[in-house]
């Protein structure tokens, strides 16, 4: 049943995307590990980690597209779920340091020793176990999304209001995680990781494995999202996006459907964050910044909302462009470019790269079959 759920209704675009992710996930680590450094086909570890980061962002964008593109929930707080997943992973990595920290305390992470803490706070218990930490990667963002969504959707907070309170949510978490006495390393966050599952996080092979894992998770995330949106539930969710009240009059409990999609999406964002942390080597409260969440929205918008593949594509393209920009003489102008991108996409390319390309493609193939009146999405 599961495989049918995942693969039924898979279209050609989906297969292309899966094949692409699989190829990258296989070839890049190989090109890094097996191809000698001098060869033009060699991929440096730094490049691989950079692209690993992009792919984490792609998974985050995918999760956002699920709620925004299909359910019409513009979350301006998805960065919070990403960061929480990241912190869960970071806590595991901190506990793996053991007595190799600067202060050599076998139990307490360095920053706790520095703050004169005597014992590990209860919410750090269990994080030395990898399975537990992975469970938390899903559970913490999922639970937050569930509780937040349960309140918000039940009382029918929609549209801009919902966007603003999701932003308030991530802002509140930003402030909270900056506090030293929260027990998450305050301003500096969690860093100086050593091992993951007994392998050094710095090692080339670990990096390659993490990269491959990111591709696996991106593909899985895509399959799950794709399965959801092409099921009847997906149709309900789109119906909610376009005419929420009408859906309710058909007897669907709109709040529960939204809650389901929102929670699944938050878990996906958490996984993205968890993969991000070991590849980047740090997690700090900056990840909660509202600006980060809004940037995620623009990745989705650039790629094409409501297309899944487009969202992932948008994340990679925008972040690649960001790296290009900020590493050269154009660095000071990146914000100009990003700002213009926001304005340009919303004004001239509301369907994003993929949606626009798809429109051209369909127009050329069967111009007669186009709907007479282009329906406008309800917000």
């Amino acid at each position, binding site marked *: 049943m599961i495989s049918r759920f995942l693969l039924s209704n898979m279209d050609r675009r989906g297969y292309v995307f899966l094949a692409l992710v699989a190829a990258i996930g296989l070839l890049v680590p190989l090109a890094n590990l097996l191809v000698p450094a001098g060869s033009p086909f060699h991929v440096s570890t730094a490049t691989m980690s950079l692209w690993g980061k992009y792919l984490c962002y792609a998974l985050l964008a995918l999760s956002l597209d699920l709620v925004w593109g299909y359910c019409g929930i513009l979350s301006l707080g998805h960065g919070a779920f990403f960061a929480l997943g990241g912190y869960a992973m970071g806590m595991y990595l901190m506990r793996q340091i053991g007595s190799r920290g600067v202060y050599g305390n076998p139990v307490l992470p360095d920053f706790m020793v520095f703050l004169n803490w005597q014992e590990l706070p209860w919410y750090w218990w269990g994080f030395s176990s990898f399975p537990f930490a992975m469970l938390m990667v899903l559970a913490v963002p999922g639970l937050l999304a569930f509780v937040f969504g349960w309140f918000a959707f039940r009382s029918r907070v929609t549209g801009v209001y919902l966007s603003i309170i999701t932003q308030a949510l991530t802002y509140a978490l930003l402030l909270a995680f900056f506090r030293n006495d929260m027990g998450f390393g305050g301003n500096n966050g969690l860093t100086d990781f050593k091992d993951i599952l007994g392998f050094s996080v710095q090692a080339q092979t670990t990096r390659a494995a993490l990269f491959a894992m990111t591709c696996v998770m991106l593909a899985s995330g895509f399959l799950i999202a794709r399965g959801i949106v092409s099921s009847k539930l997906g149709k309900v969710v789109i119906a909610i996006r376009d005419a929420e009240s009408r859906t309710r009059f058909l007897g669907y409990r709109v709040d529960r459907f939204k809650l389901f999609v929102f929670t699944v999406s938050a878990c996906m964002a958490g996984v993205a964050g968890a993969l991000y942390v070991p590849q980047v080597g740090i997690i700090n409260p900056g990840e909660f910044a509202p600006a980060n969440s809004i940037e995620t929205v623009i990745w989705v918008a650039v790629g094409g909302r409501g297309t899944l593949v487009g969202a992932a594509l948008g994340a990679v393209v925008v972040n690649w462009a960001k790296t290009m920009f900020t590493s050269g003489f154009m660095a000071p102008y990146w914000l100009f470019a990003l*700002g213009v991108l*926001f*304005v340009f996409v919303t004004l001239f390319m509301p369907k994003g790269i993929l949606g626009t390309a798809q429109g051209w493609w369909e127009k050329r193939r069967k111009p007669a079959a186009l709907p007479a009146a282009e329906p406008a999405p309800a917000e």
Partner: protein
Amino acid sequence: MSLAIRLIRMLAVIVALLAAPAVAFAQTAEEAFARFNADSFSDTARAVDILVQSAHPNAGVIIEALADGRLLAGGGAVGAKTKDGGFLDARTGQALSAEPGGVSAVRLNNNVRRAIQAALGSLGLINPDPAKRVAAAEAVFRARDVSALPVLEAAIANESNDRARRALREAQAAILIVKTDAPPFDRIAAVDVLRERGDQDALATLRALPGDASPALKEVQARAISEIEGKLALWQAGQNLWYGLSLGSVLLLAAIGLAITFGVMGVINMAHGEMVMLGAYTTFVVQELIRTNAPYLFDWSLAFALPAAFIVAGAVGIAIERGVIRFLYGRPLETLLATWGISLILQQAVRTAFGPTNREVGAPSFMSGAFELGGLAITWNRLWIIVFAALVFVALLAILKLTPMGLQMRAVTQNRRMAAAMGIRTGRIDALTFGLGSGVAGLAGVALSQIDNVSPNLGQSYIIDSFMVVVFGGVGNLWGTLISAMTLGVANKLLEPYAGAVLGKIALLVFIILFIQKRPRGLFALKGRAVEA
């Protein structure tokens, strides 16, 4: 007070000071001069004390000279070198033609310096200037130096100025509190004096009561302490309320422009904070121009900055509306994204033009400093910002309710197509409304430049708070915005002492998130079918 009474008092004091113990004073002063000759630190310190208690007419001059190292002693003679290089006899105060023979400067150590400090304090008690006497009494109050008591008592008897007398009595009380051998009745009275004073210092002094005090005294002390603490807590609450109102007015200023663009037009302007920032930078530019061209106008710089900021921010707002937002009406989420992009562009533009660091915006003289009102410390800039926020609020209400433009704005808000059919140029009204909201944000920037860092990130720090205020107050309702801003401001400041600044803010954010669940349209929402449509 009549001159006669004053004269009689003065006479009484003179009689008291001079008549009977005059000889004794003369003798003790003589002892002091002897000790100055002893060339020992402890003798010198003692000499200072004795000299003060003797009320020798030259005591002030002598001790001042000693403090400066100009006091000369030797062979029984004591002289002082004056500041202009002359010499005088310490005993008589008469000028000498030349330096007396066989004298050398009296040496100082820390112990002596301390004695000098205490002495100068005591001597201040008989300074002719009442303000100086009050200051000296305050110094004695803090020092609680038992040896100052006789001088203090003499000064109290001598004092004719009410304020100075109270200060002296308080100083006396402070000493009595620590003077265990004082008459018990006097000490209880002293507690009462301190209770009346009722500030933090009085509290500290009362707490300094030695542990071996009598039970009666201790009970009086405990009662006085709890009374003062109660009073201080009340003032503290008042102070927090004031801070809250001040924060509330800042929030109101930042949010009220948003209440127009978001509340009246339904446009989510994420670049609103940048309009505030532009206002602040306009203030900076205006001040720079005034500094270089007409420095004498500096106190008026804000008066020039206000219209300038309104025009700059308003014009940028109109440009944004005409250039971007009008293509996105009815698509609030897209508007949100596009205006976020604009905010990035504006931030970067300002960063490129003015640099990433904070810019210095000066305060005109009428906005600097503070004054005290009862137990409240009130800074002028906060006070003016509250006044300014109130003015802006009233002006906006008036524009919306009383002017033809306001009428048209409301018409367009309620029924755009109908308004258009009635001949209102809705596009123009949209632009003007947006310009007004942005211009008001610019005005807010002028005010905020007085209390916040003027940097390219200025706007970012206000945007979320502003949205919270508007959403909490209920969209489309200026009064709601006012009440919301004040409520959030006061709640924030009242929470701060218990939860700390950050936790308090988090608590408020969580509260608003929960509140929106309960009342999705804010405190003062419109009801009915029209809203649902």
